[in-house]
């Protein structure tokens, strides 16, 4: 240490900056010599074996009461290597604050080493200038002084060495208060760069074990013990002994055992868990895991530690008393990299992990990718339901690879998802058709917090919405037939707006929104490949499915974070401009009328009331559009056509005209792929007149019934009075036209 308290920088002192060999060092020295850069002063230039050293004083911005003790003047040395690799930045004071981003790597063990960049030098090289480099050092010290980088470094390990060997460590080790008793196994993969693994799972039998593991936990500490990297077993022993762990004695004993067991040719991985707490007596807040690799085999280690001796090819045990301190038993410090958990994944996605139970129905093109996106972000514990096997052409647009062809889609995806994270399995599969109502499906659905239908099938969506019991919210995601649009339907938290109600309001949006007029209309031949409006054509680009899988995953995630229902339709232009239509969702209304259930919503009722109001004291009326679910005997009233212009409206009579009706009905059917059709008639009654059918109304009902009967469809008659609409469903009981039976609907 020199007189002023600074350390002496590495290398030999040069007479001037002219002796520098690398262009970067020369540029830096020239810059600092010229006083062009404020707050810097060149001190000296030096030459180290591997590169040039430029030493300078820097005056960072330091607050009067700085949380981190950075000095007003700091002396730094920068090593710029002949082989143009990451410059090394060293502090010239031994007591430089011990904080993240400051460490001592193996080749500069005398000087605290600053970690200035979080990007690799390969990326920086093309932008490197001496001035930028100097500015970065200044800025770094200024930020450190305010404690800013300190907090940001939460996720960094304090001893992160830039070029250290990496070892993948089970996440559990970082969260448990101490190392579990279960044995740890070490292995390695050498595929260009050597990566080590530490695991609780024994390697498969055929694998040759190359390592033994010595794991130990020290008592809780207030800060990490490493300021200097221990280079040998002796140094590690000196470091850990004051903390209450005798690693060397432990190692000596284990070396004897391993040698006896015939493992003498293996190396040792030493794992030290250092629980860190804020204060004495408090629970540890986190754990530092230090991992060291011995450079020697166990037999050689035994010699260095004075417990074994070698005679020819044989090793023999030494009696106690011959122990050596272990200075020659050199160690390599590894950088621990934690395995991925759901929580860590969520963190890396910038969200919080969400362990709600999700049932996914349909693991096809969109479904598999939406699920995969959600799982990657730590969302959900999953039950996947699908009965289809994966076929070669499926993999064009699927989360599964060709290797899974022939496997059940749900089973194969569950397998893949379970390999994402360290920890409990997060997905399991039910290899069944959701329409078959198996016991397994029913119990999964009833327990679910969220049921995500991605089956691209109306019957499956209706089954999910109506037939399966359970309080969990339901959602549907699907693409329109040409794959240019994405639809999300999501029930509200209380399930007041059911998925089938949302489906109907979605059709109404398709009818009424100009930009959606071609949304369900077929291009060319109508619905070429399927029987349903959700069958997607086979020439759909994966790019579009992938994009929509991303949008859908975000929308589901944000949707379940709120209480209200969602109805969202995204459209994409050929230039990939995405737009969103999200109509207001109306509260559903349900009525029972004999065997039939009538479902509509407040928006439609308000519209009928509006028409009536506008024409009072005359009556008015018109045609109702909707959908029959014959299987479940539900009649959905979705929309109302305006009174035709040739209608006759009187204070006590209404004769519905027909002008323009046919084209409107045809258009409605074409726009909604035949989902929306004529369902009945409505008319208004004057003020003070009950909304019950008159003699004339019965004739109308009879007329409708006769026509609808041919289609085996119920006839609907709506009468709107002061209190709103009353619904009547007419069934012809016999061929006798007078025997019409009107079932007045009561609100459910």
């Amino acid at each position, binding site marked *: 240490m020199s007189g002023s308290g600074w350390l002496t920088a590495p290398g030999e002192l040069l007479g001037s900056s002219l002796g520098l060999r690398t262009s970067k060092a020369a540029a830096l020295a020239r810059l600092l010599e010229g*006083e062009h850069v404020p707050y810097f002063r060149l001190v000296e230039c030096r030459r180290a074996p591997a590169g040039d050293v430029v030493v300078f004083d820097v005056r960072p*911005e330091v*607050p*009067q*009461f*700085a949380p981190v003790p950075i000095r007003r003047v700091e002396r730094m040395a920068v090593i710029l290597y002949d082989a143009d690799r990451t410059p090394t930045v060293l502090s010239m004071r031994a007591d430089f604050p011990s904080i993240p981003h400051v460490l001592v790597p193996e080749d500069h063990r005398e000087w605290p080493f600053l970690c200035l960049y979080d990007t690799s030098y390969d990326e920086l090289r093309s932008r490197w200038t001496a001035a930028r480099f100097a500015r970065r050092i200044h*800025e770094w010290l200024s930020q450190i002084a305010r404690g800013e980088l300190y907090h940001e470094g939460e996720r960094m390990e304090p001893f992160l060495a830039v070029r250290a060997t990496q070892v993948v460590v089970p996440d559990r080790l970082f969260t448990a208060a101490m190392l579990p008793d279960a044995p740890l196994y070490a292995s390695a993969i050498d595929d260009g760069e050597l990566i080590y693994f530490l695991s609780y799972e024994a390697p498969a039998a055929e694998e040759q074990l190359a390592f033994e593991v010595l794991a130990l936990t020290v008592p809780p500490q207030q800060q990490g013990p490493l300021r200097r990297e221990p280079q040998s077993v002796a140094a590690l022993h000196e470091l850990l002994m004051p903390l209450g762990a005798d690693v060397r004695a432990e190692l000596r004993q284990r070396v004897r055992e391993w040698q006896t067991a015939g493992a003498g040719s293996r190396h040792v991985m030493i794992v030290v868990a250092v629980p860190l707490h804020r204060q004495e007596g408090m629970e540890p807040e986190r754990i530092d895991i230090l991992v060291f690799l011995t450079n020697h085999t166990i037999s050689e280690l035994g010699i260095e530690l004075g417990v074994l001796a070698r005679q020819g090819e044989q090793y023999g045990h030494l009696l106690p008393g011959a122990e050596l301190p272990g200075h020659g038993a050199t160690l390599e410090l590894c950088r621990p990299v934690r395995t991925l958990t759901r929580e860590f994944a969520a963190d890396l996605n910038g969200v919080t992990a969400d362990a709600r139970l999700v049932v996914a129905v349909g693991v096809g093109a969109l479904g598999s990718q939406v699920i995969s996106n959600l799982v990657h972000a730590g969302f959900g514990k999953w039950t996947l339901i699908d009965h289809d096997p994966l076929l070669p052409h499926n993999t064009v647009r699927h989360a599964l690879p060709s290797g899974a062809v022939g496997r059940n889609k749900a089973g194969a995806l569950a397998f893949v998802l379970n390999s994402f994270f360290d920890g409990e399995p997060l997905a399991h599969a039910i290899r069944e058709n959701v329409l078959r109502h198996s016991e397994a499906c029913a119990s999964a659905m009833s327990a679910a917090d969220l049921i995500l239908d991605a089956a691209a099938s109306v019957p499956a969506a209706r089954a999910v919405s109506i037939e399966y019991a359970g309080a969990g919210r339901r959602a549907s995601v699907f693409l329109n037939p040409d794959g240019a649009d994405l639809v999300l339907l999501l029930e509200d938290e209380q399930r007041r707006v059911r998925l089938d109600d949302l489906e109907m309001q979605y059709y109404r949006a398709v009818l009424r929104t100009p930009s959606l007029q071609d949304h369900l209309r077929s291009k060319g031949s109508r619905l070429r490949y399927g029987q349903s409006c959700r069958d997607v054509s086979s020439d759909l680009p994966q790019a579009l499915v992938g994009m929509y899988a991303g949008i859908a995953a975000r929308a589901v995630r944000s949707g379940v974070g709120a209480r209200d229902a969602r109805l969202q339709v995204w459209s994409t232009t050929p230039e990939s401009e995405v737009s969103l239509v999200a109509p207001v969702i109306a509260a559903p209304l349900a009525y029972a009328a004999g065997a039939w259930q009538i479902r509509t919503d407040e928006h439609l009722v308000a519209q009928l009331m509006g028409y009536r109001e506008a024409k009072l004291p005359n009556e008015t009326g018109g045609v109702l559009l909707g959908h029959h679910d014959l299987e479940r005997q539900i009649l959905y009233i979705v929309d109302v056509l305006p009174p035709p212009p040739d209608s006759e409206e009187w204070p006590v009579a209404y004769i519905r005209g027909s002008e323009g009706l046919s084209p409107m009905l045809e258009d409605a059917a074409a726009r909604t792929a035949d989902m929306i059709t004529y369902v009945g008639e409505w008319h208004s009654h004057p003020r003070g007149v009950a909304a019950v059918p008159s003699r004339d109304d019965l004739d109308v009902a009879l007329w409708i019934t006769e026509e609808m009967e041919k289609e085996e469809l119920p006839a609907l008659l709506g009468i709107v009075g002061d209190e709103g609409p009353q619904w009547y469903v007419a069934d012809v009981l016999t061929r006798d036209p007078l025997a019409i039976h009107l079932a007045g609907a009561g609100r459910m």
Partner: protein
Amino acid sequence: MHRLTFYPLGNADTCRIELQNGRTLLFDYAAMKDPGNKDDKRVDLPAELRGDLKRAGKNYYDVVAFTHLDDDHVRGASEFFYMEHAAAYQSAERIHIREMWVPAVAIYETECEGDARVIRQEARHRLRAGQGIKVFSRPERLREWLEQQGLTLDSRKHLIVDAGRLVPGFTLDADDAEFFLHSPFAFRTDEGGLIDRNGSSIVVQGTFNSGGRKSTLMLAADVTHGELGDIVTMSKRHGNDHRLESDVFKLPHHSSYTALGPEKGDTKTQPTPKVAWLYEGQCRHRCTLVSSSWNRPADGTETHPPHLQAIRYYEGVADQKFGEFIITMESPNSNAPAPLVIKLDGMGATVQKVVPAAAASLTSTSAPRAGA
């Protein structure tokens, strides 16, 4: 966060105080730069201040204080500020002064000219009008002048602030800032004689609250060691020692030895005991001492300030406090002095130090003339 800015103007003073609630005070205005001299490294003060006002969307200062009427504290003020007393100073681009602070001498001084005269006329106009001004004085000193104007002292008393008081209009509650007036003053000595320093300049201590920490600033204009000694005596007598504490000290009279003691000294000026107590006792840990002056002289033979011997004393204080002594014309370096910014927040006073990037330097001024 509050921000203090000291401008490199040679031996001249301008300090801007931006409070964290947006109110802004300017202490002195001295546009010293010689526009005809390319080598003049002093800052172009009006351009600098106009730029900042424009960025803040303002055309006024809440307060402009003229600590005294010497040229190095007022130069160019009559060209920069909107003066209410005469139409000649009221063009649209001029900067308004919501409240003017002046020492009493700025009212009754008869021998002054140029900018000083214009400021005097403005101060008199405002005092007559009874608004937009605070005069710092023992009130009695203004009685005669007021009566000559046909006004009574009582009718203007609320505009007169005596030493040993907080300046009304700023409070720690409302502004996180307050200003304590030390000078001008008059006081009785222990022997009973009257010392009247009402001819001297404004000395205030500002206290600034931010992030849970109170930081203090001493602004000492051009006072002499005698005046400083009297301020110390008076403050101690009234139990106001803490009103002389400082985290940032704008040193008096451009580091002239006369502000420390009677003798310049050979290597280092020896301060009077009272002045020594003011610095060595009342400057806080890691304080910042600001010398608004020309560069450090090569040797100790200079007659004009800054004096090397005085600088050495101040540097010694800074070292003892682990603080910093900064000369405005040398900050960040002598090649390119720039306004010195000190931030006051929960971490105390931080001298802003940003290494400028070339692009930032290039785009902060107009490009040189280009073209054929």
